[in-house]
């Protein structure tokens, strides 16, 4: 690398290579070392990816034999958090640091130091563009207005353009160093876990200084449109071809023998939401509305969706997925009529119950409260639950409380109105249910993450972006203008640049053509 002198910077490639430096630090600062580290990192990343494709982590942990043993020693089940990967990343960072440390003073000198007025060395330059022109100083200066003149003497002018580009590689490498450090720091520690819940649940985890209450979760589907997989008549799956007319669609139905027929069906027979992998592409959005709780106080309401995580106190909650296989069916109602019969006395009363409102049973000390409604009652190991949102076997839980303090819940079935013998001498029967409705609730799943090194990564992105733009879109060009003595002879222009010299040549040729034309 050049010593920071403009001449040696411009002619570096023509000179003999610098003698090899010895020592660990010198080796780290060489480009060759950094490139080899990058190549090894790239090759090992590829190898790790291929091993990952051939062996699932679990399969690798179970596999027997020398090959799997070796892969386990190398931590190929999680290669990018392995010791050797971190070591390589650390070496790369060290190498980048050494490069930056070595090159910063050189760039600084190139930036600040005035070029030498000795131009005799220009005669031996091989990679420059040399042209001669017959032109006055003022005219040439006006034509070369894009150059900033760093030296103006009677015999020699030295102009530069795109000098800011000199900083590009330094910024780029600093950015890459920061990104490497950020990745290294991020590979240690951190939190990565999944939490799920239904609407109304509060999710929290140890170490997270806040809790999140799920207020609601929704899945929005695209409207019917061509290309969608749809369920027709709850019987077969097809692909929507196009809308035949208002309210009717053409659906491509695939046979088992790969035959295909186009069937026209009414829109109300078609569903684009069904329990299959195919309907996933029809999902437009899924998101949870949550309330953040700190010390039991509501501090924030937010929607968590894909591409819109909740960020708080260093934690990030992502809308990772949801569980369509284990839904919860929730039903509600406005009121119900409960028939209370005393068969011994031959008396029957009907009372109206509102949900969760306690009402006294006539002529008794017992009080009854109407509770949960299950539209499709089933009894499982975990107790009663609803199997669907359809009102196939609706049941309401009634809770009886007596003056002596007893509390007795009991399920009453609407479609099987056998008179349930309640507490005491009465039998109970629900004669009608009003305003009943049921919905399906899905469990939302959040991914909770906390990692370190994020700030370093962001800073790295900024530095590297600036660096890349300066390095590749700002080209540093130097122009030496040697004036003839006492107005005799022609002015000699020597253009030097380390990049795209042919373009520079074209540019100078065009300038000379213009000068000649104007003369």
């Amino acid at each position: 690398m050049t010593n920071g002198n403009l001449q040696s910077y411009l002619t570096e490639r023509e000179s003999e290579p610098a003698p090899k430096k010895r020592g660990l630090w010198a080796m780290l600062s060489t480009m060759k070392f950094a490139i080899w580290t990058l190549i090894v990192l790239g090759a090992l990343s590829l190898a790790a990816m291929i091993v990952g494709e051939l062996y699932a982590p679990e399969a690798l942990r179970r596999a027997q034999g020398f090959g799997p043993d070796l892969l386990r020693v190398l931590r190929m089940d999680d290669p990018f958090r392995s010791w050797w990967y971190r070591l390589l990343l650390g070496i790369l960072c060290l190498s980048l640091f050494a490069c930056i440390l070595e090159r910063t003073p050189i760039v600084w000198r190139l930036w600040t130091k005035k070029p030498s007025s000795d131009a005799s060395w220009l005669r031996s330059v091989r990679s420059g563009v040399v042209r001669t022109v017959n032109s006055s100083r003022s005219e040439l200066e006006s034509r070369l207005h894009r150059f900033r003149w760093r030296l103006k003497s009677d015999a020699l002018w030295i102009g530069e353009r795109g000098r800011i580009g000199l900083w590009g590689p330094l910024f780029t490498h600093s950015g890459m160093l920061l990104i490497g450090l950020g990745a290294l720091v991020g590979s240690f520690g951190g939190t990565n876990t999944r939490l799920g819940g239904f609407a109304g649940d509060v999710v929290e985890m140890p170490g997270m200084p806040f809790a999140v209450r799920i207020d609601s979760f929704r899945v929005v589907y695209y409207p019917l449109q061509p290309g969608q997989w749809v369920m027709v008549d709850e019987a077969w799956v097809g692909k929507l071809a196009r809308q035949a007319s208002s309210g009717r669609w053409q659906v491509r139905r695939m046979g088992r023998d790969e035959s295909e027929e186009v069937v026209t069906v009414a829109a109300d027979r078609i569903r684009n939401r069904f329990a299959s992998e195919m309907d996933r592409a029809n999902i437009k959005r899924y998101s949870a509305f949550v309330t953040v709780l700190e010390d039991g106080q509501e501090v924030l309401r937010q929607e968590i969706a894909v591409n819109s995580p909740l960020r708080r106190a260093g934690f990030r909650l992502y809308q990772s997925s949801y569980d369509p296989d284990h839904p919860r069916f929730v039903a509600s109602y406005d009121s119900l009529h409960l028939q209370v019969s005393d068969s011994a006395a031959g008396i029957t009363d009907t009372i109206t119950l509102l949900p969760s409102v306690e009402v006294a049973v006539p002529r008794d000390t017992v009080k009854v409260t109407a509770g949960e409604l299950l539209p499709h009652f089933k009894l499982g190991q975990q107790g009663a639950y609803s199997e669907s949102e359809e009102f196939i076997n609706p049941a309401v839980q009634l809770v009886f409380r007596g003056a002596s303090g007893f509390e007795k819940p009991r399920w009453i079935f609407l479609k099987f109105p056998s008179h349930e013998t309640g507490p005491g001498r009465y039998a109970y029967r629900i004669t009608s249910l009003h305003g009943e409705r049921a919905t399906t609730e899905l469990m939302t799943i959040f991914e909770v993450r906390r990692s370190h090194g994020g700030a370093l990564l962001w800073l790295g992105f900024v530095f590297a972006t600036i660096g890349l733009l300066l390095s590749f879109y700002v080209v540093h060009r130097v122009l030496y203008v040697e004036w003839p003595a006492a107005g005799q002879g022609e002015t000699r222009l020597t253009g030097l640049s380390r990049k795209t010299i042919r373009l520079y040549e074209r540019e100078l040729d065009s300038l000379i053509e213009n000068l000649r034309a104007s003369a």
Partner: protein
Amino acid sequence: MATPLDVQLFWVAFWCYLVGWFVFSLWLAIKKPLLTTVGSLLYVLGFVPQTVAFGVRWANTGHFPMSNMYEYLAVMSWMAVLTFGILTWRYRQWVISALITPIVVMLMVAASLLPKEPSMQLMPALQSYWLYIHVSLASIGAGAFAVAAAVSMIFLLVAKEKEDANADFHPSLRPALQALVYVPLAIVIVALVSGLLAQQSAMVFFGAPSPRGGGALILLGLYLLICGFVWGRLARGRSLAEKRYWTGIGFLGLFGGALISGVLLKSGSVVLTENSPLRLFEFFGLVLICGTVVVFLSHALLGFGRIPWKLKLEGKLLDEVNYRAVTLGYPLYTLGALFAGAIWAETAWGSFWSWDPKEVGALIIWVFYSAFLHARYQRGWSGTRTALLSLTGFAMMMLSFFGNYFFGGLHAYG
């Protein structure tokens, strides 16, 4: 079903470029200035509908048309045209237009093989403005790399360097034919001595299920690969120009082979073993088999090496255009594929980097082009060496692009 307007416009552009290429090829032979005007006009006539197609598709789908592989490749070819247009204008060298077009045509043929049905519905993860930034910058960068690869191919096939002035140039197929005989002999001997066949060793090493028909593809591909290396060894004494020529033909075979393989797979003439992790190797085998045919065909089409030798093209110019195209593409690819991708991944998936196959592929490509730039800028690598790097980089990029057919992962949308 009627072909959508944007696909029709895509085909209009394709035919304009193809005819434009023929016109420029004619210009190379007879050098009539009128032909450059006609050729340029055809490129413009192709570029306009291709640009309009992009807008039409955007309007039809209601979202930025970058959600599947056809759209990505279409934009990549569009960008390649734009890049070589800029380079032709900056360097005023018509020959760039004449010789780069095949790669644009190739990209468009590859795009035409992919499902063109527009995705009307963006999945939730893709509903972000980062889609525009990430995919467009990456495809623009990739388009520039495609141009660099095309220029490099021309360099290898056609360019003349100072030392070639008195060089002996008689590209002969003899070493290739020798290799085709020697290699099977060597393989038979090794197989007999060790009792280990290539497929078995692959199974032992990977412990993977054995593909039945695919095994033949892998073996034949492996055989041709070894033949290629032996060919290289046998041609050691040849001139540099001749070696360059054969290397160029080799890359032509690789890209052509990949394209033909794509056509064969698309048409169902060849089927890779379902769900086998070795299907990638089967694909490589198929590429090498088709590529070998392309190598011999290309050699014949190039007049057994005589046509490129007669074209007087300055190596230094091609070398600089190669470098310029890479420097145009590299920052965009870095910002788009890596930085914007990482930032978007953090917002959508919770992690800047997930080591998804496509991400690893992008990283390797980036490392490769970084090495290219350092080698050129710091070590003064140029000419043949940078041309080889450029072509290898582009081959890696195409492999990464189609990689999700073999590896799946988070980027398996199209």
